[in-house]
């Protein structure tokens, strides 16, 4: 049952006013709360609301897009007209024409994120206290903590969508995040411990695995532990990647290369369809659903072209089998759209983005995996990363624990891993059964932001390690 038929009617009137091949309109109301405390100081408390309509028109084989921060009837009609005119102008500038949009299973109805403890039911005061107390706990825990920082963010989106070919939906989405960072100093050297979580869900979902204070304590323990850690000498080696790193490699190093817009421009994956690109233990997936464990931050039932989300295998048992599409690239590649067209804000046009990207779990137990490792490192906690169209990646890691004859040993910090992701995944010889999402506190950037998640089991492979 739709709650705001009136809004959908306004949008429908606007898109139908354009003389074109296709048009869609998206009205988005975004309520955002950000609270941030650093070293006892409330640095930010921000309640912000963003509303507006984005209208997209396909005409003469080209796209036009216009947005307005208003819902007035005349403004919507004006925006539709502007988008139509821009499509005409763009068409004159192009050598080629869009082949149009692939048929898709279009949404017709209402969608609501699964939420335990709606964020609207928790007062801003309680949210503020949670952040203030967590930050205070961090500083109180250990005298070596010179700086602590804690923040909470929530995005609550209400979206209304209409397309000229019959798709329409109304959606409620709720994505909170909680981050803690503790910094220790040893002389001139600073060492940070970071713990962060982001989910699709409510207040209870955000803290279902660990409450705010335990999260803060864990960041402090990590910083203190790392203070005693040494630096690694670089070289190629065997490593066990934790779910955050498995998510990062799946998303950043592989996922982007299989986004059909990048494939079209000749990403390394454009030559790989049907080929063996990884160990046969590797099945790599992008899904709008939160597989295995609920609450993944990239969860999305329907995309911003009104296409119902599908679970897409990118690599099946080591062989590349799928790319990620919007309706336009799906038409070009003659496949069914995958539900990967996403727009962050009302004034962003939908582009191909990932959702929850992961590697299917294996059948190893974690302790067996460590016991089985003669010499290597257990790497935990992704710090940041970047990767290229050729799948060459570089990730910074919080903690590296040496493994010697199946026993965990010395701790190292400041470690990076790099190499070709496909080469690294070709060396995978073990994946654990236990599965986690662990990338949900961050955002993916591709000209515009997107909430995504990533994860998997613990995975053993060989990479190039960098130290100091």
């Amino acid at each position, binding site marked *: 049952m739709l709650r705001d038929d009136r809004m959908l009617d306004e949008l429908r009137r606007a898109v139908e006013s354009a003389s074109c091949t296709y048009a869609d309109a998206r009205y988005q109301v975004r309520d955002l709360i950000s609270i941030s405390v650093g070293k006892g100081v409330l640095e930010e408390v*921000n309640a912000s609301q963003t509303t*507006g309509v984005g209208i997209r028109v396909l005409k003469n084989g080209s796209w036009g*897009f216009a947005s307005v921060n208003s819902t007035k009837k005349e403004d919507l009609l004006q925006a539709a007209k502007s988008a139509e005119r*821009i499509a005409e102008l763009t068409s004159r500038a192009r050598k080629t024409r869009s082949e149009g949009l692939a048929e898709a299973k279009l949404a017709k109805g209402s969608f609501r994120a699964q939420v335990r403890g709606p964020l609207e039911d928790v007062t801003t005061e309680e949210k503020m206290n949670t952040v203030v107390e967590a930050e205070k706990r961090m500083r109180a825990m250990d005298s070596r903590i010179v700086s602590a920082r804690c923040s909470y963010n929530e995005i609550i989106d209400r979206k209304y969508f209409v397309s000229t070919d019959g798709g329409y939906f109304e959606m409620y989405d709720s994505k909170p995040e909680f981050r803690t960072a503790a910094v220790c100093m040893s002389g001139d050297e600073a060492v940070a411990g970071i713990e962060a979580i982001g989910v699709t869900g409510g207040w209870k979902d955000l803290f279902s695995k660990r409450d705010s204070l335990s999260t803060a304590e864990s960041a402090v323990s990590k910083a203190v532990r790392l203070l005693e850690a040494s630096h690694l000498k670089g070289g190629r080696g065997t490593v066990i990647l934790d779910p955050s790193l498995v998510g990062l490699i799946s998303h950043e190093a592989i996922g982007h290369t299989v986004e059909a817009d990048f494939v079209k421009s000749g990403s390394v994956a454009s030559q790989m369809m049907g080929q063996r690109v990884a160990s046969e233990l590797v099945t790599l997936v992008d899904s709008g659903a939160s597989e295995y464990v609920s609450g993944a931050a990239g969860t999305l039932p329907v995309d911003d072209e009104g296409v119902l989300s599908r679970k897409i295998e990118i690599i099946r048992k080591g062989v590349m089998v799928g790319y990620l599409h919007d309706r336009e690239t799906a038409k070009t590649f003659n496949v069914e759209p995958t539900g990967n067209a996403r727009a962050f804000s009302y004034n962003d*046009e939908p582009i191909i983005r990932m959702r929850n990207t992961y590697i299917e779990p294996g059948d190893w137990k974690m302790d067996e995996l460590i016991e089985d490792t003669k010499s290597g490192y257990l790497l935990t906690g992704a710090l940041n990363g970047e990767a290229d169209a050729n799948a060459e990646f570089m990730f910074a890691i919080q903690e590296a624990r040496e493994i010697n004859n199946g026993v965990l040993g010395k701790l190292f910090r400041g470690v*990076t891993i790099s190499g070709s992701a496909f080469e690294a995944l070709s060396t995978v010889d073990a994946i654990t059964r236990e599965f986690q999402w662990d990338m949900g506190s961050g955002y993916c950037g591709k000209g515009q932001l997107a909430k995504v998640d990533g994860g998997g089991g613990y995975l053993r492979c060989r990479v190039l390690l960098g130290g100091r």
Partner: protein
Amino acid sequence: MDDDLLSICGRVVKAGEGLGAGEVEVFVASQSSIEASFENNEMKMAKRTVSSAAGIRVFRNRSLGFASVNSLDPDRLQRALKEAVALSKNAPADENNGLPSPRPLRAVSGLYDDEIEGMGEEDVLGRAQSMLASASRVDPRVAVDGGRFEAAVGKKAIMSSLGVEGSEDFSAIYYDIGAHAVDGGNVSSIDYRFDGTRVMREDDAEGIAVELANASIESLSARKLESHVGSVIFSPMAAIEVLLSPILFSVDSNSVQKGISRFRDKMGETVAADFISVTDDGTFPAGLSSSTFDREGVPHSQLKIVEDGKLRSFLYDAYTARKGHVESNGHAAGSPRSVPSIDATNIFVKPGGKPLDDIISAVKKGLLVQRFSGRVDPISGDFSGVAKGSRSIEGGSLQGAVKETLISGNVYDVLTRMNCLSKEIKRVMDFQLPHFAVDDISITGG
């Protein structure tokens, strides 16, 4: 129109005082932009965005409340104001909270260009098309992944209950381009360039497109390098990432007051080689980060950050200035959508005396690093990452491109033992800086 923005601010400030908000500040902006993008060697689309935003900050009994809205509609502004006041009632008090007092503003030139205002969708599409054509013309193996050209004009205004008042018109163009090269199954690393300016006469969109296309072709023949300790020359783009960003972190008064700045107790002391001078100038004519006033209505100035290797100043906003018992030097930054944060404005690094070619000739074995992709920890100064689009140097001459090559070291150490800076400088957005050359850097091959 400026008067309109100021009168909108005035009404909110007055309403805020009526609600017992204590100190009230309203920062508003309205903007109109046209952007044309290209993707996969073809024009993609254009878009027009008309937007406005207001940020309302209140301090009630030294407690912060802030709300923002993407509209100048009176009802929504009123709702945001109430939200900000409500938040301030629950927020902890802080003795250093409060708005700055008004100070006289001086006009800054080159903030607005009528030519940018006059650009329509066709003009912007034309500029983007020309970037794409310039890159494609270099070599058929160049694959342009994407890019854009954007022209924006707008107005902003600020007013506070303490009497701060300012408004200005602004214009800007921004452009970026990403590409790689493909030769059969040989795919190069993806690379990109970006820049922007306030005035059309400094538009160099085609220039960066050609530079990128040439770099992409060069990196097709990339080879792995043996690990060694050698000289590294950082391009202006790599220097911003590896060297300047940690300096700017360390002169941010927030980092200083939190005790996480390496420069926290180094005022007046040597922090870099004696030929390194870094200046921040928010009044530079037509600078991308130039403005008559900062995010709190405080005027910008020309500020020496590092002079002949010695630390000269930190960057303050009203909060950290009060905490540090000094005056704000106009470094509150940010949009109306969030509370002010501290940031640098336009950054200038004084060039050296040697041409880049001479610097390269003097290198026995090393690397010319175009772009850096990796981690720079501004606290410890440790950096470790991949040298992207980079070329090796042997026996004083530039060799081919390298791949999977890591460089690592410590920024604060590198700054003090810097070898030299190039005579040539380059603008990258709001930075103008030379190449930086240093010896004895750990270079790890793949």
